[in-house]
């Protein structure tokens, strides 16, 4: 804890307030609002103070920073890329106003092209490319918001959630992913900003998928977003994070923490389609707990980023709880998609299904890394893990690293994995029906990921198919 900073901070408030009145001009640079590169207790203190947070959160941030600093870099996965991260060259907190500085001309050509092909509205494009800070969606989705409020559903950004529903947040925040979990969870805990906070009251069925779009603003897509979803007893909710359109940012590290809590009999589905621009490290911790009879489903698509490390996990804590993880990864040129899934069976008669599909092309590398653990007390569990990989060309690479730890006698665990190329017989058949080689190949690839696409809301599925088509043509990157 840095008390010096605290005092200094106090001393400086108010400076510059009367500039305009005294000198007739106003310099918009605010002293502590311009974040500096690198991370230390000063940055964390400044952030927490600017957000006007309670003492417990401020202390939590400082404690997390200590953990981040003391934890060594993880020693598995793509260590070459991980060790290349320069933590002192990153802005950890950037105020929305500062982000407006970017110009549309700086946005890479392939991102603009993708926007074109996907038919993204102009206002949204600028927002997604980080050019415009505000994208006013409140008006568009006003009726949706009203409907939710009537049902008692809380749906805000995390910062607002913390302010307005402190009791709830304090009860669940960081209980699923403590800062000690891993280095990047610690980093997020120290400097988190934005993300979603959702609470669904008992028995409420949120019929439409909740999307970050409903309340889109810059806080939403921070680098270190923090999402907390609580589905109370018997409720149902489907949340959709991100979008298929590429998100461009000049900041190279994205490290989110997502915590889901499915209380007795609740149902949560969390859908993500990640399409960060190809300079980004996407190192994300996502975890859910499912209590008695609850169901958690992760639907996870990874298309963008340079390196993604993301293993959505479910802890099955109550009898009869269910986990389903469905993921797709597409690794193109220079990309490493290190994605996977993790399920811990800690209660009897729990079931889990993991389905992973990966595609590697143009020297890309995709890895499935997973863990299934069945505790001795978790009797009568069923586990099914299936990983399929498709290699488009001889330069690409696919790895499968599944781990299964079974400590209960009557658990049934099945795992299966295949790696192959696009089948010659399938190509031949389609081409004999008049399809070109390109079309045939695309059709096969789309068929390969179909178990994933069919779980997406229609507009996402359509966009995803278009994106895959572009990737297959090689018109991206």
């Amino acid at each position, binding site marked *: 804890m840095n008390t010096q900073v605290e005092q200094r901070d106090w001393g400086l408030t108010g400076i510059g307030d009367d500039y305009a009145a005294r000198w007739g001009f106003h310099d918009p640079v605010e002293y502590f609002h311009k974040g500096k590169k690198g991370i230390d207790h000063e940055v964390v203190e400044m952030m927490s103070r600017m957000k006007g947070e309670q003492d417990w959160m401020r202390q939590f941030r400082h404690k997390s920073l200590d953990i981040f600093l003391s934890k060594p870099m993880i*020693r598995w996965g793509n260590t070459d890329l991980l060790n290349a991260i320069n933590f002192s060259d990153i802005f950890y907190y950037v105020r929305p106003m500062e982000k407006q500085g970017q110009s549309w001309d700086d946005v890479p050509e392939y991102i603009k092209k993708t926007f074109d092909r996907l038919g993204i509205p102009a206002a949204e494009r600028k927002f997604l490319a980080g050019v415009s800070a505000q994208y006013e969606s409140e008006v568009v989705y006003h009726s949706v918001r009203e409907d939710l409020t009537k049902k008692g559903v809380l749906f805000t950004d995390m910062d607002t959630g913390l302010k307005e529903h402190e009791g709830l947040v304090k009860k669940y925040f960081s209980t699923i992913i403590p800062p000690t979990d891993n280095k990047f969870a610690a980093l997020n805990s120290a400097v988190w900003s934005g993300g979603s906070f959702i609470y669904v009251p008992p028995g409420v069925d949120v019929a439409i998928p909740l999307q970050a779009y409903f309340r889109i603003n810059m806080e939403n897509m921070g680098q270190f977003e923090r999402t907390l979803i609580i589905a109370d007893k018997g409720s149902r909710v489907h949340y959709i994070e991100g979008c298929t359109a590429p998100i461009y940012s000049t900041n190279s590290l994205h490290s989110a923490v997502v915590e889901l809590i499915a209380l007795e009999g609740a149902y949560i589905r969390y859908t993500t389609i990640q399409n960060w621009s190809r300079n980004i490290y996407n190192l994300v911790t996502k975890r859910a707990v499912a209590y008695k009879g609850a169901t958690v489903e992760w639907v996870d698509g990874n298309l963008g980023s340079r390196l993604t490390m993301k293993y959505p996990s479910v802890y099955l804590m109550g009898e009869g709880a269910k986990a389903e993880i469905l993921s797709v990864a597409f690794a193109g040129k220079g990309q490493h998609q290190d994605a996977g899934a993790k399920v811990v069976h800690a209660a009897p008669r729990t079931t889990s299904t993991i389905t992973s599909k990966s595609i590697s092309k143009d020297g890309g590398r995709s890895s499935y890394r997973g863990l299934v653990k069945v505790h001795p007390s978790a009797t009568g569990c069923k586990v099914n893990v299936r990983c399929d*990989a498709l290699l488009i060309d*001889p330069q690409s690479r696919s*790895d499968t690293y599944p781990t*299964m730890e079974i400590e209960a*006698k009557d*658990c049934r665990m099945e795992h299966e*994995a295949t790696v192959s190329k696009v089948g010659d017989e399938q190509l031949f058949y389609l081409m004999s029906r008049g399809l070109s080689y390109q079309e045939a190949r695309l059709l096969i690839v789309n068929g390969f990921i179909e178990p994933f696409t069919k779980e997406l809301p229609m507009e996402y599925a359509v966009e995803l198919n278009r994106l895959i088509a572009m990737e297959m043509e090689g018109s991206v990157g």
Partner: protein
Amino acid sequence: MIQTIRNEPIWLGGLRGKALEAYRDLPFPDRVRHLWRYTDPNAFLPDGDPFRQNKPAPAGSIAPWCEVCQDEIGEEASALGIAMNGLTHQVTLPEELRSSGLILKGLKQAIMEHDGLVESFLGRLIPAESGKFEALNLAAWQDGFFLYLPKGVELGRPIHLFMCEDGAASFSAPRILAVIEEGSSLTLFTEFMGQTVNGRTGRQVNAMVELFLGEGSRLDHVTVQRLSPGAHFYLKSRARLARDARTVSVLAAFGGAMAKVDSGVVLAGEGAEGEFFGFAFGEADQHLDHHTEYEHKAPRTRSQLDFKVVLKDRARSIYTGLIRIDKDAPYCEAYQENRNVLLSEGAQAETIPELEIMTNEVRCTHGATVGPLDEDPIFYLMSRGIPREEAIRMVVGGFLEPALVRIPGGLQTSIRRCVEERLRRF
């Protein structure tokens, strides 16, 4: 230091010296890495001085062991080698085989008599850099076997090598080197056996097996591990296959308190083929850690692997298997299967089948299952009047059959007895 004591050729002294350096310098296995996540490497560090010469066992005390070995092989062996506590005790090679150019000798003796031949192979497949315990063996081995099969010799009957541990030595480090030349074929049994004698068990056994297969050659290699319940066993075996060579490896593992076995094949020549059928049967508090590694380094190579695990009591098994297909190895096929049956409440199975595929013209799959014994066939057998215990024995027997049927002759009977013995106590 080591070389002067042992009066060995200069090249070997150099090799041992380098290995010793590597043993000292190599970092201790990282427990974050999955290969050591479940097994404590401390278990394989020698208690005493690993470089102290083990004393040859007196002939009288070895005699009963030799009888056991003879029993097991019956009439079928063409040649036989017995080692006790890492020291070669006896090699029997019929004259007609000797005249065909086949060499079977204690490794130490082979170095005296076939210096150049041994030098060109020893430590080439499992060099000191491959790991701390590998370096330890290369620095500290006292004896073992050297087997050389010249071009075009097809041996009809198997060669048996026995590595016995009677507990007189706290550390033993046998090393086996086999070279099979172009077009030859061979069936080789290597068995690690141990008994508790006067309360002493062979505590630390660190064994290395290097197998070189020439073009178009074939090796059927059966490894049996029946060490005493207190033993800590570290085994690494590697086979390197030249063009069109073929090997079938069979592994049956029963013994040891802690066993870490790494069995690998390098498919280095086009068209080479490796098959593996193995099983481990754990009981009591045994900790059995098996790793297989199939490296496809050449086009059109094939591998198929089937590893079964049966566990009762509080036994724990860890299986990690890697299939790696190199960039320059298109048109490969690889298949890997690991099935685990847990018979008791406290048993634990870990399975990590891995794939690393760097090219796309491949067919590669793996599957893994963990579960209790399937009740349906047991029910069926019982409905036919077979008692439950008997039915369980039959179903487990059937589960292990793919490996069992590939163990030839008398040894198969002996292994079946071992399996049944364990099930009887269940």
